[in-house]
């Protein structure tokens, strides 16, 4: 039987992969993809708890999370394109103007 712990464990693994991706990668596109992985992990948790508790609120909120993820991806990618115009690079290390 699939239990709550299965879903929560999987979502935790996915979240950790996302965190490590954000920390390790220097390519802005891949960093944004890792953020999407973390949002997906959160959604798995919401749906799993909704299933366990018999309350649809979790599914409603995971739809909201998906909407926010869509907006975040649109803005993030527009920022990447602006940065590319400015620097002809999408490497995070090239955007170091604020470094002290």
């Amino acid at each position, binding site marked *: *039987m*699939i*239990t*709550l*712990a*299965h*879903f*929560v464990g*999987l979502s*935790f*693994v*996915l979240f*950790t*992969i*996302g*965190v*490590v*991706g954000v*920390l*390790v*990668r*220097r*390519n802005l*596109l*891949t960093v944004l*993809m*890792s953020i*999407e*992985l973390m949002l*997906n992990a959160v*959604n798995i948790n919401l*749906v799993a708890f909704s*299933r*366990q*508790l*018999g309350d649809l*609120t979790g*599914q*409603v909120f*995971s*739809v909201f999370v*998906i*909407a*926010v*993820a*869509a*907006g975040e991806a*649109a*803005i993030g*990618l*527009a*920022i*990447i*394109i*602006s940065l*590319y*115009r*400015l620097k002809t690079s*999408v*490497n995070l290390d090239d955007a170091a103007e604020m470094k002290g």
Partner: protein
Amino acid sequence: MEPALFFFWAFAAVTVVGAVGVVVMRQPIHSALFLLMSFLGVACLYVQAGAELVAAVQILVYAGGIMILFLYTIMLVNVRRQRTERYLHFQAIPALGFGFLFLLVVGGVVVNEARALAAKVPAADPKALATTVIDGVTVLGNTQAVGWMLYRDYFLPFEIASVFLLVAMIGAVVLGKRTMERFD
């Protein structure tokens, strides 16, 4: 092993392999394709958890919309001409160590708590979840039940989300359109 559990592990494997591929692949286009694989795996898991509407939205919005945005951006920034990223950044080893510890310690605690909760609160019947009676009307199916809740109990957040999407769209257009002179 019962079939449901077998499929759970299969979808979980697809999801995790896709996620690892996103982080490991050097070319962003390969990362994007692995990301698609991960999204589809997650959608299958939603179906298994009885959230058919969320699964459909996941495929439409993530695998359809966000994926296309990523592919367009990869095309526009001409990644092949980029200087190749140093594979093992100095941050990589502490980050991997942190990830491992995070997974082991916090993950262990969270999974144990989930197990304790599942033992205390028995899982709800999925059929009862999909056929609730709201105001004397029998709601049939997950999509109708979630839609009912979305428009009735969460109407204001729903409208705010639509305004948010409009703002995001205008912001993306403005950011993408403006020509900026180079500093360097």
